[in-house]
């Protein structure tokens, strides 16, 4: 076990190193750099001034030297300065992370809250008008782009309430923030809930045809008990898998949702940073995400051993 953990830890370090190289190189493969963009905003090109600015930002140095400077500074806790705001990268990134984390958690919560029960209902009421209705709703959820749905929601609010649920100011408290985040979370969670609902339905339908369900019914178990205790427990495994995958995909949906609802989160910020070729921000942010992902995976792998004694990594 000890040897495995060391091996696994070293693998984690190697993965992070690979990630750092990948993100560093990929950013530099994209045509143009911050200097091009800064000069573009002034509508001018002056090769001498551009060269001087490249020198100032250290972009004139060989790429290997740039990488070594970046990685050693980062290991010392220095994440560099944003080329655009000229503020420390961490000062720009850290305040934005909680906003996106809350939005993502809320979206996932909504998708499970609606997706699983509605999937079960749709399955147990198969081929009824309620089933057809829920299937149409789920199909809509999969078909509607989240930015379009977001805009529809905003238009509806403005039309019927004269108020727009966007982040036009800092939330006044927990409930205000929850309210402001609920609407975009519902918009982005709608698609995920539709997927979860469809998967729950098909998985439930398969399980409901199993012999043990017939047996449970025969022995007089209540409908509630059959559907939720016997069927859902077995049908939920693929659903849990898809929830995990959806959580990873959520970041993509959040970019659009944060833009439409004007939420100052990290997803929109990352896209903006890429647009500006703000290397210190993009590199730091992607590395932070990578570190969290890799560490969590490492901990999960370790937890398997504890949770399931049948897993023997040594073998």
């Amino acid at each position, binding site marked *: 076990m000890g040897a495995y953990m060391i091996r696994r830890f070293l693998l984690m370090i190697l993965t992070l190193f690979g990630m750092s190289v990948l993100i560093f190189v990929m950013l530099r493969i994209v*045509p*143009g750099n911050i200097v*091009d*963009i*800064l*000069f*573009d*905003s*002034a*509508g*001018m*090109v*002056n*090769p001498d*001034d551009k060269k001087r*600015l490249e020198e*100032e930002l250290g972009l004139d140095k060989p790429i290997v030297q740039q990488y070594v400077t970046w990685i050693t500074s980062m290991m010392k806790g220095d994440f560099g300065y*944003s080329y*655009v*705001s*000229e*503020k420390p990268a961490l000062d*720009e990134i850290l305040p934005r992370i909680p906003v996106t984390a809350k939005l993502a958690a809320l979206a996932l919560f909504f998708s499970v809250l609606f997706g699983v029960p509605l999937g079960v209902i749709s399955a147990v009421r198969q081929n009824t008008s309620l089933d057809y209705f829920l299937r149409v709703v789920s199909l809509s959820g999969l078909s509607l782009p989240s930015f379009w749905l977001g*805009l529809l929601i*905003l*238009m509806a*609010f*403005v039309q019927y309430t*004269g*108020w*727009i649920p*966007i982040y*036009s*100011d800092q939330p006044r408290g927990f409930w205000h923030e929850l309210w402001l985040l609920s609407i975009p979370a519902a918009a982005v969670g709608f698609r995920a809930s539709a997927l979860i609902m469809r998967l729950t339905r098909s998985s439930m339908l398969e399980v409901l045809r199993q012999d043990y369900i017939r047996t449970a019914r025969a022995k007089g178990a209540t409908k509630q008990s059959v559907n939720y205790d016997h069927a859902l427990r077995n049908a939920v495994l693929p659903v849990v898998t898809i929830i995990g995958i959806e959580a990873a995909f959520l970041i993509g949906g959040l970019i659009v949702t944060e*833009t*439409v*609802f*004007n939420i*100052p989160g990290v997803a*929109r*910020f990352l896209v*903006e940073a890429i*647009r500006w*070729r703000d290397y210190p921000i993009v590199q730091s942010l992607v590395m932070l995400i990578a570190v969290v992902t890799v560490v969590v995976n490492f901990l999960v792998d370790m937890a398997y051993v504890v949770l399931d004694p049948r897993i023997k990594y040594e073998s």
Partner: protein
Amino acid sequence: MKAVWLTAAALGLAVGMGDVATAFAQKSGGTLRIYHRDTPASASLHEEATVSTQLPFMAIYNNLVIYDQQKKTNSLETIVPDLASSWSLDDTKTKLTFKLVDGVKWHDGKPFTSEDVKCTFEMLQGKSKNRLRKNPRAIWFRNLKEVTTKGPLEVTFNLEKPQGAFIALLASGYTPIYPCHVSAADMRTKPVGTGPFKFAEFRGNEVIRLTKNPDYFKKGLPHLDGIEMRIIDNRSTRILAFQAGEFDMTFSQDITIPLLKDMVKQAPKAICETKPQYVHRNLIVNREAAPFDNPKVRTAMALAIERKAFVDILTEGKGDIGGAMLPLPEGGWGMPPEELAKMTGYTGDVAKNRAEGRKIMEGLGYSASNPLKVKIATRNIAIYRDPAVILIDQLKQIHMEGELEVVDTPLWHAKVARKDYQVGMNLTGVAVDDPDANLVENYACKSERNYTNYCNPEVEKLIEQQSTISDVNERKKVVWKIEQVLNDDLARPVIYHDRAATCWWPHVKGFVGHENSIYNNWRFEYVWLDK
């Protein structure tokens, strides 16, 4: 010309006194909420060339003189005092002396003096150790020999030769006075000015906040307690937010002609003013690469363009046709119809023009079955792409088969500077409606913003000539001659000038949008909220 300036000063003082008289009717307090369309690259006006920077940060600063914020037109007659209390020109017309207002303080409490003026212009001329990262309008001051001071309250601009419109450049919102004691780097992120509002906060993608300067040297101003500009990238969201009353005012000319109809329907009480943007769509042609090094090909292109079609399709007929200078009636230097008629491709029967263009191309060996294949490069933004698509369609008429090449927007200027294009669709914004700004900035040989590197000695000579002429009508004749040469050369030929609207709610008072520039009217010192 001296008389004109003295009149302008007198008018400015009169306007100022008028404001004092009516100040009692205005309400003080409140925060003006405007939405911003994107994150500005920095807060340093001298380093940027976009209204994205100008609108949020102009109110932090003062100029020596400024275009009257309560008049719609920018001209020599509407220049009023700002940090300068008066000005005069010597008999040689090369020494422009300003008396400065006494007792003005920077936002950090340090006194403003003539040395700050000197520092600012030495920085713009590249003579200072305090270097700007970018200096897009350095060319404006190419006639400035030096700035000298006489005590803390007098400063003289020594010109190489007479330049009647020099003061017009000083009056632009793009020519604020910077403090000597603050570095160029700090001015990008924590700007310090003398203006009616102090810099409070700038968070990219989120918000820009300004607060009232209680020590502002213009007594009784500003009326507002502050200005808050939320940054909302998505146009649909920000327009909905304005309609919902979340904002008092839209961003400058954010409402296009097609969007205006919806705005009028959804927010009938909003005040929307449609004005020229002085941001024109133009063609750039690589004159150094075959076959466009052949003047005949360029002439054929000029004959193929039907400007009215662009205006009708893209602006629902509201755009304007003209040359490089803003067309009449808002433009001070626009060409009258009889002058426009002299320009190739501007008048006459379109079919006949195109037949002539086809004939030229056929003479060069091209035909419907053997068209000239050409790439039309443009930025990957709708306002660039849309006219490029129409252009491709029009060029077909003269045996040119265009292919759209969209360029990632940050790479555009660099690509053009490398001359890595054949034909491009471009946009050009002009800050000051004066040939000394527009023509010098975009067509003079050594200008930073002449990124196509167009350089014609004849045009250079004419630009110099018009600059020294004091009689406006005489100057116009030379300017129109320049327009003619630029058109013949196909040097960034102008396709059309766009119009768009800025909207605000009726409770916003005292805001006057300028008609011939979108860059000079964001001081907000007279704006107040009737709430």
